[in-house]
């Protein structure tokens, strides 16, 4: 489960999903407002049910996107650190040979 979540977060297209979340959120808000501006039975029922499903979905996408952003940033930092360490290690070896150069 944890491994699957990590995989999902590593793959998650953060920017795109945040845009999807924003659009879903706007749809949810529109449906909530619809129940107030046009308070007929179907509109009111949709305002109190479907809109909240959309709202929760948007918030869930936002949370996943933030978590994915953090995980991906950490992974990127980790890669940079490893690259820096590898470069330092290589630099140390090369540096030893280079000291005798004119």
């Amino acid at each position, binding site marked *: 489960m944890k491994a699957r979540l990590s995989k999902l977060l590593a793959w998650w297209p953060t920017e795109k999903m*945040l845009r999807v979340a924003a659009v879903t959120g706007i749809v949810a808000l529109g449906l909530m407002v619809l129940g107030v501006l046009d308070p007929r039975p*179907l509109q009111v029922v949709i305002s109190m049910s479907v809109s909240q499903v959309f709202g929760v979905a948007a918030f869930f996408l936002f949370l996943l996107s933030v978590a994915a952003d953090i995980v991906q940033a950490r992974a990127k930092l980790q890669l940079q650190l490893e690259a820096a360490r590898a470069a330092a290690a290589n630099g140390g070896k090369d540096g030893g040979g280079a000291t005798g150069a004119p």
Partner: protein
Amino acid sequence: MHESYSLPAVLTLALAGLAATILFHYLIFRPKLNAQVRMRLLFGLGVLPAACAAASTAYGMHRTTERSFCGSCHVMTVHQEDAENPESNSLAARHARNPMFGGTNCYVCHADYGMLGYPMTKIGGMKHVYMYYLGGYSKMPIAEALKDIRVAKPYPNSNCMQCHSGGLASFKAVREHRALQEDLLSNRVACASAGCHGYSHPFNKDQPAEEHAQR
């Protein structure tokens, strides 16, 4: 928007407006995701929509108790018109003229009471919406609906006795009340029946309304 319960309505519109502004700003300008943008989106997608949902639900819950809401399904327009008719002598109309019932007289009389009364009434209301939109009532002519539509279960006297408790001397002074006390409490005899206080909505019973009014 309905004026009698405007605070949740205004809150819904204001909160939705704020949240939508944040979301549209994000969609149009596409800022880079940093702590500030995350916090703004937390408000735009979490805090403000949650508050907006609470306000719209409060508004919706209140709106569903209003007579005009019940009457917005065409099969209920005759009931609504009767309740609003100052000339009508039906039990429903007489109660609607009472300020304690006012514009919510359908709900006050038909709501179940007790701890679970409110949610059970709302769940029952969902069945009405289902029956109207998917059960064929939306296409039913009013004349047919008046014959066909009945309360789902016998109307409980306990709903009447929420106000007419039966404890006052004026209630006990009525000979029929005393004689039928057991039957009234056990729902064997209905308060709103032809022999007692008359039907609440006489026009959808077999007898014509004029005949009922003369009783």
